[in-house]
């Protein structure tokens, strides 16, 4: 059982984090629309669920803190507290603190660090201001630790019938009883065993037990009822106060009881015989419509999603990759056999395999929205810190991309956003002076575009200062004096290492580390980033990413017996190199491409392939950033969608080759790393050509 509980606790941690995420989103939603009852409900439910499940695991610090938060939220829901900026701020901080508490549990740590405890005290104090000073609240806050509040203590009769699925759903009936004890005292308990089947039909994984409990507690009906929130769906629960029954309410109880006859519906029986001050606000009739949609939502979610270990998924995708390769091999063989029916069947197989591949890859795709929503909080906090009024507009949140990419793009995006808020958007005064609305806007957008995904971060700030960047760049020697680069080229200079035009270093940005890191991270994901700016209108940063890291659209080329793959998005065009041209350009090292000088890279020489070059060679024109070159190869073999296989540590030092893939024939082809290849060649060329020049000037 303890192992089971450990697993369940892991689930609790994961779910609690999700709940907190949802809570934060709803809080931000509430901030922009204070009258949003749905948001309040969602926040309350999140806090409540966390408290409830934390109680199941006996995580006292979480329960006690969340309890205070929940109280405030309850009052918010009743309308006895108004939504204001201060409340939202303290609730956001509380949700941060709850996350911290959960992290402590996740790390198996025993206690919070002292500064966090101090923070908790502070939060509690602020929260208490929102708690009602009325006497009803006082015993309630104390009820967990102080069950003998004599005026309120009443006797309840609780009939519990756990459903057979309780164990399988990961619940331990005992933990509910344990949690119940935090509300009061169990005076008498009878275990009901009448549902126990004979030994032959007895299933060890099913729960057949029920309990009859005499319970003395100060808590109201609602509070006791909440204890069983997590098993309500498949259990029968009756909670009746036994002091003095009131007939009219009794008929109500019978009515709800009759509904339970349908075994498929939730088996909840709620009875409230003794109205008291607290429970009056939570009559069953009120609670039910409030709760029911929540549980059905949760159910729909459970049905629509399956939690799968990411490793299992990777394994599957790897296997599917093998399948693609194997089926390509089979079709190749079938083509040699001249057997029509065999060819037909292999082509059907490869069609299906391709669909499986697409499906398998889609399994890894998650919407970017979750990452985007995280930034709402960042934008809110940063804009307050900067004293600017900034609105974040999100669109395209449903755009899906690979999980790995989503995980790795968070930090670069965060950096770009902070940058846009700090440097891009001006202060309200400056904006008004420029004739713009005082409120700044940040637009985060995602969309699919020809096999890749584009993320756009647009601000309506001042735009980049072209002249300042150029000046800085010349100062740092990034641009040769006298050169006249295009605006686009100048703007992209800000991605150079150590480049910052900010006069002052703020604690947000301005240190000049960052944009180059952003660019490097994006390049690592096989993506590109570029930037567009209109003075006075704003700046747009566009990040273009591949949909997945596992598959590459490649262009196959042959050099002698070897095959290489060039990433297709780098290929611009292919031209044939006639024999005469070949001899001529070989001497020059470049080619005249419609009036443009195209430097050539003889891959055969570069890679030290032996043997004579074929008579008819081809040039593949590749482009990366500002570098454009022609790769001279023997054969063009066409496009190929392929699964990337890393080469391993042994080849870690290898520049110009990023990985490998397996062709249909079973042979291994190497994937060219065009950016590294071009940079490497540019560097070696410089080394060979610059020294003589310097010598010449010295002389």
């Amino acid at each position, binding site marked *: 059982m303890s192992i089971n509980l450990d697993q369940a606790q892991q689930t609790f941690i994961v779910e609690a984090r999700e709940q907190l995420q949802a809570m934060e989103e709803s809080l931000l939603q509430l901030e922009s629309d204070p009258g949003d009852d749905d948001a309040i409900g969602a926040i309350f439910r999140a806090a409540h669920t966390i408290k409830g499940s934390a109680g199941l695991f006996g995580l006292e610090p979480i329960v006690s803190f969340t309890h205070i938060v929940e109280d405030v939220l309850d009052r918010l829901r009743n309308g006895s507290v108004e939504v204001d900026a201060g409340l939202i701020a303290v609730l956001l901080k509380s949700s941060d603190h709850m996350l911290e508490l959960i992290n402590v549990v996740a790390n198996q740590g025993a206690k919070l660090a002292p500064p966090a405890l101090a923070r908790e005290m502070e939060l509690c104090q602020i929260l208490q201001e929102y708690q009602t000073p009325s006497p009803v609240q006082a015993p309630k806050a104390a009820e967990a630790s102080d069950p003998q509040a004599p005026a309120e203590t009443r006797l309840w009769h609780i009939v519990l019938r756990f459903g057979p699925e309780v164990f399988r759903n990961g619940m331990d009936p005992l933990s509910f009883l344990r949690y119940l004890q935090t509300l009061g005292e169990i005076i008498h308990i009878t275990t009901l065993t009448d549902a126990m089947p004979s030994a032959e039909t007895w299933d060890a994984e099913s729960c057949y037990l029920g309990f009859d409990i005499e319970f003395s507690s100060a808590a109201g009906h609602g509070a006791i009822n909440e204890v069983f929130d997590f098993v309500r769906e498949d259990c029968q629960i009756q909670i009746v106060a036994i002091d003095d029954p009131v007939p009219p309410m009794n008929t109500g109880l019978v009515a709800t009881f009759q509904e339970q006859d349908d075994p498929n519906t939730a088996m909840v029986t709620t009875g409230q015989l003794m109205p008291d001050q607290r429970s009056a606000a939570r009559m069953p009739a009120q609670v039910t419509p409030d709760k029911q949609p929540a549980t059905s939502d949760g159910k729909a979610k459970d049905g629509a999603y399956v939690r799968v270990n990411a490793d299992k998924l990777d394994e599957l995708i790897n296997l599917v990759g093998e399948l693609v390769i194997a089926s390509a091999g089979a079709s190749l063989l079938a083509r040699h056999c001249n057997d029509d029916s065999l060819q037909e069947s292999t082509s059907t197989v490869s069609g299906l395999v391709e669909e499986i591949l697409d499906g398998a890859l889609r399994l890894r795709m998650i919407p970017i929205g979750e990452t985007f929503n995280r930034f709402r909080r960042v934008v809110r906090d940063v804009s307050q810190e900067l004293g600017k009024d900034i609105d974040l507009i999100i669109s395209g949140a449903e755009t899906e991309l690979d999980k790995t990419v989503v995980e790795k793009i968070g930090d670069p995006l965060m950096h770009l956003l902070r940058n846009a808020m700090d440097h891009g958007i001006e202060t309200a005064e400056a904006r008004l002076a420029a004739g713009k609305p005082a409120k700044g806007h940040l637009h985060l957008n995602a969309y699919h575009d020809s096999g890749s995904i584009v993320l756009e971060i647009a601000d309506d700030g001042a735009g980049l200062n072209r002249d300042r960047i150029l000046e800085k760049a010349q100062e740092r020697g990034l641009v040769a004096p006298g050169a006249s680069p295009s605006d686009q080229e100048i703007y992209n200079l800000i991605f150079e290492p150590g480049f910052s035009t900010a006069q002052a270093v703020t604690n947000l940005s301005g240190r000049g580390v960052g944009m180059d890191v952003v660019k490097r991270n994006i390049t690592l994901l096989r993506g590109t980033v570029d930037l567009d700016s209109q003075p006075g209108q704003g700046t747009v940063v566009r990040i273009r990413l591949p949909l997945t890291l596992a598959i590459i659209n490649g262009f196959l080329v042959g050099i002698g017996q070897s095959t290489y793959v060039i990433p297709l998005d780098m290929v611009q065009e292919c031209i044939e190199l006639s024999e005469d041209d070949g001899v001529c350009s070989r001497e020059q090292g470049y080619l005249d491409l419609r009036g443009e000088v195209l430097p050539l890279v003889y891959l055969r020489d570069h890679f030290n392939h032996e043997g004579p070059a074929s008579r008819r060679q081809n040039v593949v024109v590749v482009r990366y950033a500002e570098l454009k070159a022609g790769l001279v190869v023997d054969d063009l073999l066409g496009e190929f969608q392929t699964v990337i296989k890393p080469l391993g540590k042994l*080849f*870690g030092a*290898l*520049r110009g080759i990023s990985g490998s893939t397996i062709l249909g024939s079973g042979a291994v082809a190497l994937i060219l790393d065009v950016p590294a290849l071009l940079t490497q060649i540019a560097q070696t060329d410089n080394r060979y050509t610059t020294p003589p020049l310097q010598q010449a000037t010295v002389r």
Partner: protein
Amino acid sequence: MGAIATTRQAAIAVEEDAQYLTFMLGTEMFAIGILCIKEIIEYGNLTVVPMMPAFVRGVINLRGAVVPVVDLSARFGRQNSAITRRSCVVIIEASTEDGHAQDIGLLVDTVSAVLEIPASQIEPPPSFGAKIRADFISGMAKVDGKFVIVLEVDRVLSIDEMSQLAQASPTALEVETQ
């Protein structure tokens, strides 16, 4: 010195009756403990990886996994093995220093046999004179009155060392200047 020799013998004594794969490199016979060997395949279908030192012959497709092939002869600082009909690739599970396992193919001229060599028949390695690096040798086994060099696979196929060599190799121009 004597203490070291006895501990070594004691260590060998534990793995008594260990089995070894013997193979030829040119005219010389070598042996590898059989436990780290996954399989032996015929040489073929190798893709040359450019700009790597001579001892890295290239990569092969081993049922969907891309496995590097190391030319053992070149690794010992000799000529590259000539490919013959009997050339074989011995697939070995090597581990990097950070504990990750990686399969590596070992190109050898001929695979001979799997032998059971009693620990008593294995001598400690000579400190010099074997014409290969002393730390590559785990011991000298006596088989049919002749000495067979038992290789220390972890050292011979040390991925960390080999990748450092790859970095220092003269063909990796860019790295050299950094």
